[in-house]
């Protein structure tokens, strides 16, 4: 019988265990190698136009207490995945974290630790965590606009949803799995996709009817976007050829939100090819907007300044546009929120700001 993708993923995990087992059998200190997951080890992949991990490796070795703990946790997690594959079950990342409570020395102290280890396994095996029967929680990002999806609902039946006519003001909630087997794009009528950082701005655009007025699909990112949100944006871009425009606050953290949509996140650079949309455009708020639109601002705090300086050495921001914007923001010493545009009235963003910005891009 042909093996399913879960069994294949498990096979791949067992190879890691085998490696560790053989090291011990040979009398060697067990260790495990994986790419370094930091900004110094990401490279632009010219073929796909996204940022992926480079060649720099780190070694987890049982020589040190922290390394030994990680190896032990890896063993427990793999054994848990094995059980799930064999018993045909699955769990959320949160459940995995709670299940580790029973793992004695191997238990995780934060969910970040267990999430990160699951990502490590993805990186080593080149499988996705869904293949390990691990899935994220729904994160609540939403879509409003004239686009129709066909989603396989929990009863296993296809269900068509138009994101303008069939949803309430909150919009269509993006499921964690947005692959074709779960979600099909049936039909659409729009010129571009606008991805929005904050709920306040998303609501403003919905109330102002910007989706219909500008023939756009509005996607609420909910801060740093989840994998499924980024994957959906990529599909909209690739399959429908729709331009993706990213609209965020004007501060260093929002710049990173754009970078993760367009170039890929440092944390998940192994999946960049699958999640990043290299053609996504940043439309604001830029540091120049603060000056040009004379926006109300807040002072940069120490952490903001640190983050901006870090971005100056982040290869993803190594373009003239970003250099200028980051340096200007440091010079101004100020940041601004999307909603600062309300200074000129509630309709200003949809009547003046966005039309100006969008036409600059030639859409």
């Amino acid at each position, binding site marked *: 019988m042909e093996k399913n993708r879960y069994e294949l993923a498990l096979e791949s995990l067992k190879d890691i265990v085998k490696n560790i087992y053989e090291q011990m059998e040979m009398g060697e200190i067990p260790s495990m190698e994986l790419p370094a997951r930091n900004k110094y080890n990401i490279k632009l992949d010219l073929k796909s136009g996204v940022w992926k991990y480079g060649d720099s490796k780190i070694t987890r070795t049982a020589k*040190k207490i922290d390394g030994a703990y990680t190896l032990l946790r890896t*063993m427990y997690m793999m054994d848990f995945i094995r059980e799930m594959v064999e018993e045909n079950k699955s769990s959320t990342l949160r459940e995995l974290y709670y299940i580790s409570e029973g793992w004695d020395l191997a238990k995780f102290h934060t969910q970040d630790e267990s999430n990160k280890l699951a990502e490590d396994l993805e990186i080593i095996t080149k499988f996705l965590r869904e293949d390990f029967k691990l899935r994220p929680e729904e994160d609540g990002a939403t879509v409003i606009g004239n686009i129709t999806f066909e989603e396989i609902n929990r009863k296993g039946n296809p269900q068509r949803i138009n994101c303008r006519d069939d949803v309430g003001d909150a919009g269509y909630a993006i499921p964690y799995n947005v692959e074709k087997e779960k979600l099909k794009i049936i039909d659409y009528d729009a010129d571009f996709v606008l991805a929005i950082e904050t709920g306040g701005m998303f609501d403003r655009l919905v109330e102002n009817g910007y989706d219909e007025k500008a023939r756009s699909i509005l996607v609420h990112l909910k801060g740093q976007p989840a994998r499924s949100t980024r994957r959906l944006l990529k599909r909209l871009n690739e399959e429908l050829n729709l331009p993706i425009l990213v609209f965020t606050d004007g501060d260093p953290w929002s710049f990173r939100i754009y970078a993760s949509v367009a170039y890929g996140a440092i944390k998940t650079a192994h999946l960049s090819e699958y999640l990043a949309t290299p053609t996504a455009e940043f439309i604001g708020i830029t540091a120049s907007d603060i000056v040009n639109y004379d926006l109300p601002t807040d002072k940069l705090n120490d952490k903001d300044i640190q983050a901006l300086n870090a971005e100056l050495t982040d290869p993803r921001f190594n373009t003239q546009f970003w250099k200028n914007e980051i340096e200007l923001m440091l010079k101004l010493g100020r940041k601004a929120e999307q909603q600062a545009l309300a200074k000129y009235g509630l309709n200003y963003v949809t009547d003046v700001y966005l039309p100006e910005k969008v036409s600059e891009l030639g859409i």
Partner: protein
Amino acid sequence: MDIAEDLAKKQKEISIAEFFEKNKQILGFDSPQKALVMAVKEAVDNSLDACEDARILPEIYVTIERVEKDEYKLTVEDNGPGIVRREVPKVFGQFLYGSRFHAVRQTRGQQGIGISAVVLYGQLTTGKPVKIETKIASEDVGYVFEILIDTIKNRANVLREEPAILNKKSGVKIEVNLKAKYVKGKQSVIDYLQNTAIVNPHATIIFNDPDGLKIKYERVWDQPIEPPKETKPHPLGVEIGEIMKIASLTNAKKISTFLTGEFSRISNNLAMEICKISGIDSEKDPKKLTLNEIKALKDAFTKVKILPPSSESLSPIGDTLIKKGLKNVLGELRPSFYSIPVTRNPSVYSGNPFVVEVGLVYGGNIPQDEPVKILRFANRVPLLYQAGSCALTRAVESIDWRKYGLEQRGGQGIPVGPMIILIHIGSTRVPYTSEAKEAIAEIPEIMNELDLALKESARQIRTFLIKKEVKTKLTEKFFLVQKILPKIAEKSSIILQKPVPKLEPVITKIMNVVWIDEKIEQNKGSAKIKVSVSNFTPEKKSFKLYGDISEGKIEVKSIKPFGNYDEKNDYILWEINDLEPLKEINLEFTVYDLKSEYGESVYYIEGINPVYVVGAEPLPGDWNIEALRSIIEEEEEEENGEE
């Protein structure tokens, strides 16, 4: 009557009571709480000084009783030489009597304002006389006095003076009533006595507090303290007023003998040179010196070459006694480390010799997350007030303690950690910031010595902390190989359905250390010492191990297995041959003739790379901090950044 004369008469009659009232702050009686500490301090310091002069081991009883709500009776009794009958009225009944200005040496007494100030304070606040009992050894009978101070004439008003049979060889007992407030904790009588006991381990001090609490600091050193020698003042250490006073009292008939006789470090030739430079006739009568001539003399002192003052007049506490004192009083905090106290060589500021000493204790039950406690002493007397403006505190604050393993915000200020710092400055003239004599002035020469002494002590702390870290890492590794590694092996074998692999070779590779661990069984006057030597490296090991005891004597017969005992140098040598991986050898011996609990032995190794050894130091010479470092650094090398 003429108004001017009337005023003059009134001025004359300004009593010492008024003077006292106006200068309460300066004299240290600004609050009832502080007044009580001052009273105890004056009496106890006098007792300790007197015992020192008479080479008597001090035994001092301090008792405080509550008379009324805010009135207390303080009794201080000592076994000192006593005070001769005719001196009693002057010592206790005459305000600000009796400072010796023409001879200098380090005494406790110069820290204070004199016991008569206490008597006066008691009298002014309660109206009651002071009661004195005194007996000297050469007389069979003692005397009892009751004295009030005549505040107009500043003279003793003796109410009672009668012989009495006192059941002791010699000593003084003073009973004074005063308005006061008794508290415990910071800046209290207990605080003062505790700190006094630390720097006077040769004294027994017994304290009975008004609430029925009894505290006894037993002496741990049974040799009397050698009193410092008196020397004449050094020319660079005197002020104009002092020169005037010395000149008015000298027996010398001419300037040249005045200079050689009344000052230290002035030879005949030097005296003639000084006369020449200052333009004063060397034959002139010193009593006839004018103010300008004295100024010229003082000026001439700075222009000739004078040897620095002798340090004979100083009395450092010394490393042995500082350590004993700290152990005796702070022992209940069970510190895990006592530094070897640092006594700097004597140094000089403006003609005054001084010496700086520092002792540290670390760990145990000393609070972890509070600022380090600084115990300040000048001439063996605790300084309890004005810590913030004191040179001793400033010197601590100006060191970057982070380099030595303590927490300190921004690398300055008082560090945080489980540590207590003792700082002592001894000098013939302690430079105080004010008349209250509560804080030391920041004199560059003194700051420099303090800095050196503190850093020398801090380096010991760093060595200790590095040793401790190596131990912690080792404990971690034991946990790793005993708990975590077997689990990794077990899980991997479950997943792969294979037998659990043998881990011994992996364990020795991870540990890669020869561990020497000492366990001590304390008995009365002796201790049984067991040493385990374990080879956690992948290879056989052969080396020499030396055991050096910290106190007592080694019982040769008890050495197991038999090692070479070197009688002359008092150490044991074991030859360890071909110790197999994961094998352990057990050694033992007994130490006897112990006065207190046995501390710990020092082990040295020879013939093995010290990097692989934990629990012993390389032979010979200093304890190789670099080797230790390399262990820690090797560990840290592998820590590459992960986001």
